[in-house]
């Protein structure tokens, strides 16, 4: 397989934008988190493509570690989701607006 590097980046950029769209448009905390996952995967795609482009191992290493970190973060995030659900019985992000100004 041989594809221009730019095309891989274009896919990644599109994916990133989709993830960002999800973050911005959705109001439910879980969906916002899913949007973040999409963004992270876009980053992974760039890393892997660049790794291939530069013929290096570093990019792939970064992806592996990124996955692990994401896992850790998701664990905490989901625990937080459960905690919030218990408190307020809602996961709509904008409902948590006790402080402002």
């Amino acid at each position, binding site marked *: 397989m041989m594809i221009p*590097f730019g095309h891989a*980046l274009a896919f*990644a950029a599109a994916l*990133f934008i989709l*993830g*960002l769209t999800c*973050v911005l448009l959705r109001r439910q*905390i879980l969906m*916002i*988190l899913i*949007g*973040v996952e999409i*963004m*992270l995967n*876009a*980053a*992974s795609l*760039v*890393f892997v*493509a*660049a790794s291939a*482009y*530069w013929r*290096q191992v*570093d*990019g792939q*290493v*970064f992806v592996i*570690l*990124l996955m692990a*970190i994401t896992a*850790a*973060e998701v664990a*905490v*995030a989901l625990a*937080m989701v459960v*905690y*919030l659900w218990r*408190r307020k019985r809602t996961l709509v*992000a904008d409902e*948590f*607006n*006790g*402080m*402002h*100004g």
Partner: protein
Amino acid sequence: MSLIDLLALLPVLILAFGGTAILMVGAWYREPRPLLAGGIATALIGAVAAGMVPPPSLEIAGLFSAGGYARFFTILWALLAAAGLMVATRYIMEKRLGAGEYVSLVLYAAAGMALLSSATHLLGLFLALETFTLAFYILIASNRRCEMAAEAGLKYLLMGAVATGFMAFGIALIYASSGTLALPDAALRMTAAAGGLQPWGLLGWGLVLIAVGFKISLAPFHLWTPDVYQGAPAPVGGLLATGSKGAVVAALVGMLSLAGPVWHDLVDLLWLLAAVTMLAGALGALGQKNLKRLLAYSSVTHMGTLLVGLLCQNTEGLAATTFYVVVYAITSLGAFAVIASLADQRGEPMAFDEWRGLGYRHPVRSAVLVLILLSLAGLPGTAGFMAKFAVFQAALQSGYLGLVLIGVFASVVSFAFYLRVAMLLFQPEAPAVQRHAGTAPEHAVVAVCTAAVLVFGLFPGILFDLIGRLLP
């Protein structure tokens, strides 16, 4: 990972393993005092280790530096962690939080901050950043009895997650354009136009900047700051305001010193960010009626000013920024320590109404708070002034007159809101209710911060000389 690396990493290892050990002990032994004492001791030992044990190499595993600069910040954050724990003692005991978990998280965050300040590799940077951010996610929301804490935790977490997304994508782009994650190379290869992918790399730097901007709350990524400061308990807020921001700035300073020319392309963007940030913070604080929110906005202004120092691509600027970070960290911690020391069953005093006339009940701490606020504002004779002076000096030297003028305007506005609080404290009409008398550790932290504010204000040479020798 060789033995040399481990030795060089010793202070961080002490913090991380000490934290883990206290976590383990805490699982069986729930008495908070010894755990806290252990935590404080660990942090202090870490600081001592960083100061006393010379690193066998200047580099750790290609990811982090173990040079003087890194060590300096390691000491600073370790001390900060110790101070944070001292301030948190009463809070933990009164709220019956798990001391083991809390202590270990703080130590773990300190380790992360120390690593971040010494990162020389984008992977190290990313990991260290994630490390202490994760700890803060938990710490902020750790008081599960508090509605606001939960909200603050959620806001910080979601924003943080999105920032992580930006960060990862940005680093990926940098990597794509330069083919390396090691910092000097990553920056250098871009200017050398290796492969001509420079623009992607620039975009990557921009994205990293957004993520960093979130962490140190640059406008317009600062919106979470007041909410989180308000919601988070003061001991955590203190760490968040000082360590988490300071470490990121320290990392930026490190990166900048390693990655000189690439920032050249980002100058106008940084200029804009700095200007907007200074203004947004100062103006936002004007209408506040809550001290913690006010401190949040003030931190925004300060970060903008810091950015001005960073913009100056010379050692003057770097030294000024470093000085500023240290001073800001100390001062800010002092402010939060005062707030924490006044907390009682009714919670922390936050709304202005609760502060009105407090100077008549607690004159010493009120006076200290006034001093700290004035230092934040930049009154000559306090450390805050020397910091601002250094930054403005560097900025003028680099020709950023516009930024300096904006900074001056922001400073004037800042004086307005700091002084309003200062006045409030000594208004005679409605004497405030008695608050908590504070404990010895809290007083100690407040005293040390006050002393530092004065000493660094009157004799800044001590710190400047140190920084001058440490700068990479």
